[in-house]
C-alpha cells in the first residue's frame, strides 16, 4: 500500500536550533496517528511542513504531492484544525457555512447543518459570542462536512473541558473516520486519546524516537511491576527506564519476551502515556 504521508530526511532549523533534524516517517491510509512529543519537540513544525505552511529541507510527499509546490491542489484533500482559537471572531455561523461551500468543492452543507442541529449553536451567532467549546463544535462541524482524505489536528481540544473533549473525539471516530481516511493528531492529553490511535510517532528534540503501530508496541515493550525489594533480578535484565510508585517499581523493557519476564512480577503492556514518559526520560538520560 502506498503511504499517505512519506517523509524522508525532513529538516528545518530556526537559527541554531534544529526543529526537525533528518526526520523520516511514513503514514499509511486509514490510520489514526498520534504525533507525540514534549513542548518544542518539533511536532507543530512537522505538521506545518506537511500542510505546506513552512519551507523545509528534505523530501516530503503528502498524497503523492509536494506541499511546497502543490499546496493549492493538496488542500482539496487535506483538512486541518490548528486549535480552537483560529476561527475569526467576527464570523457568523451562517457565513462560515456560506464561505466553506463557496470555496471548497467537497463541502457538504447538509452534513454540517445536521451536526450543528445537535448543538446549541445558532446560525446567526458570531464566533465571538460562542463559548470555547462551541467554537470547537462549529469548527468540527465544518471539518466533518469536508470530504477530505487526510485530517491534521494540532491540539484540537486545548483548553476545553472533559465533556467537550470526549464529545469531540467520539464524533471524530463515529461520524468521520473510516478506512479511507487518515488522521494525524497531536495532543498533550495522551491518556485520554490513546485508545484512539492505531499508530504513534514519538518525537523529541527534532528527532523521531519511536514510530510504530499500536499492535507492535505490545510485542516490543513490556512493563514489569515488582515490589522494591525484588527489583534487583529485574534490573539485571537492563530496563531502559524505571519508576517508583507506592513502594513498587515499574520497569520498562524493550525487546524482551513475556516468558522471560513474567516470572519476576506483574507484567503488562505499558500504556502509551507511560511508554512516552519512559522513552522521553530514557532518551534524556542517554
Amino acid at each position, binding site marked *: 500500500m502506498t503511504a499517505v504521508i512519506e517523509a524522508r530526511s525532513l529538516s528545518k532549523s530556526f537559527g541554531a536550533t534544529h526543529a526537525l533534524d533528518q526526520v523520516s516517517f511514513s503514514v499509511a491510509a486509514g490510520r489514526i496517528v498520534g504525533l507525540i512529543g514534549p513542548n518544542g519537540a518539533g511536532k507543530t513544525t512537522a505538521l506545518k511542513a506537511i500542510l505546506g505552511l513552512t519551507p523545509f529541507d528534505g523530501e516530503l510527499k503528502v498524497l503523492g504531492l509536494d506541499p511546497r509546490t502543490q499546496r493549492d491542489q493538496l*488542500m482539496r484533500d487535506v483538512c*486541518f484544525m*490548528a486549535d480552537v482559537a483560529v*476561527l475569526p471572531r467576527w464570523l457568523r455561523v451562517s457565513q462560515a457555512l*456560506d464561505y466553506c461551500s463557496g*470555496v471548497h468543492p467537497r463541502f457538504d452543507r447538509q452534513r454540517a447543518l445536521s451536526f450543528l442541529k445537535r448543538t446549541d449553536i445558532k446560525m446567526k451567532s458570531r464566533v465571538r459570542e460562542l463559548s470555547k467549546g462551541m467554537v470547537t463544535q462549529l469548527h468540527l462541524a465544518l471539518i466533518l462536512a469536508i470530504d477530505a482524505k487526510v485530517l491534521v489536528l494540532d491540539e484540537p481540544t486545548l483548553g476545553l473541558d472533559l465533556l467537550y473533549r470526549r464529545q469531540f473525539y467520539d464524533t471524530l471516530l463515529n461520524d468521520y473516520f473510516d478506512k479511507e481516511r487518515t488522521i494525524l493528531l497531536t495532543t498533550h492529553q495522551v491518556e485520554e486519546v490513546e485508545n484512539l490511535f492505531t499508530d504513534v510517532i514519538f518525537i523529541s528534540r527534532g528527532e523521531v524516537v519511536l514510530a510504530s503501530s499500536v499492535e507492535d508496541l505490545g510485542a516490543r515493550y513490556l512493563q514489569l511491576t515488582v515490589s522494591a525489594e525484588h527489583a534487583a533480578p529485574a534490573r539485571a535484565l537492563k530496563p531502559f527506564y524505571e519508576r517508583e510508585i507506592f513502594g513498587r517499581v515499574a520497569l520498562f523493557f524493550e525487546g524482551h519476551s513475556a516468558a522471560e519476564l513474567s516470572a519476576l512480577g506483574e507484567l503488562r503492556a505499558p500504556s502509551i502515556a507511560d511508554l512516552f514518559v519512559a522513552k522521553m526520560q530514557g532518551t534524556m538520560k542517554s
Partner: protein
Amino acid sequence: MNTETADLRTAPVSAAAGSDTRGILLTLMRREFWEHTALWRVPLIVAGLLAISTIFSVSIDVHSDRVTHIGDPERIMVLNVTQDVWAAVIYLVASIVVTFYALDALYTERKDRSILFWKSLPVSDGLTVLSKFLVAVVLVPLGVFVLAIASHLIAFTIWKLRVAGGGVPDVINWNAVAWLRGELVIFLCLILSSLWYAPVVAAALLLSAWVKRSPLLWATLPLFLVPIFEYILFRTRYIWNFIQYRSGGIWHILGTRDGHSVMSEQMRMLNDLNWAGAFTSVSLWLGVLAAAAMLYAAARIRRYRDDT
C-alpha cells in the same frame, strides 16, 4: 470516435474548473464585506446623508449669495455639477475607508491567527490577495458609482418637490443627455482613478502582509520622513515630488489639453477633458505594472508567513 469521447470528457471538466475559480473569487470578495462592514456601511451612510440634506439645503452661488433665478443652460449645469459633487464626496469618504481596509486586510488575519483557518481551505494565496485588491479597486468604486446615482436622484427629486411647494427657487433642471454625459464622465474618472491608485492599494496590501505591527504607521511615517531625510542630506525633493505626482498627477494630465487647462469650460467636460492623454499616460501603466509586482510579492509573503 475515440477522440470525440475524450473531448466530451475533458471539456466539461476544464469549464467547471474555470467557474470554480470564479465562484471562489466571488465568495472571497463577499467575505471581505462581511469582515469589513465599513466598506459598504460608510459610503451608504454618506450617500443617505447627502440625499437627506437636500431637505434643509439652500441654493447659493460661488460668492455664497442666495440664488433666486437662473437661466435654463445654468440649470442643467447645476445638474451636472451636483452629480460631480455627489460622486466626489462619496468617493472621497470611500477611499479613506479603502485605505484603512487595504492596510488591515492581510494583517488582522495574522494577528488573530485566523490565517490558519483560511489556509486550511483550498484557496491559493494569489487568489486571496487578488480578491482583496479587486474589492478595493473594482467593487467599492462600483458601489460608489451606484450609490452616487441613487443619492443624487433622490436629492434631485426632493429639491423639485420643494420647488413645487414654493419653498426654494428652481435652480436645477433635468436633461437626460446632459445627465448621461455627466455619469459617463464620472464612470471614466472612476476607472482612471482605480488604475492610477492601483499601486497605492497594492503597496498598502503589501505592507499589511509584511510588517510585524502597525501597518498604518509604516504606511504614513515614511511618506514624511523619507522626503525630509532626502532634503536634509541632499537638498533635493525628488521623493516628495514623486509622492505628489502619484497623489494627483493623473488629474493634471486629464485636465490639460495642448498645454492649456480645460477646467474653465465646465459645460462640455466629456469632449474637453484629455481622456486620450490620461489613458495613454506611461506613468499610469507603469503604476499598474508596479501594482501587479507588489501583489505578487504580497502573495509570496503570505505563502510562508508564519507568525503563529
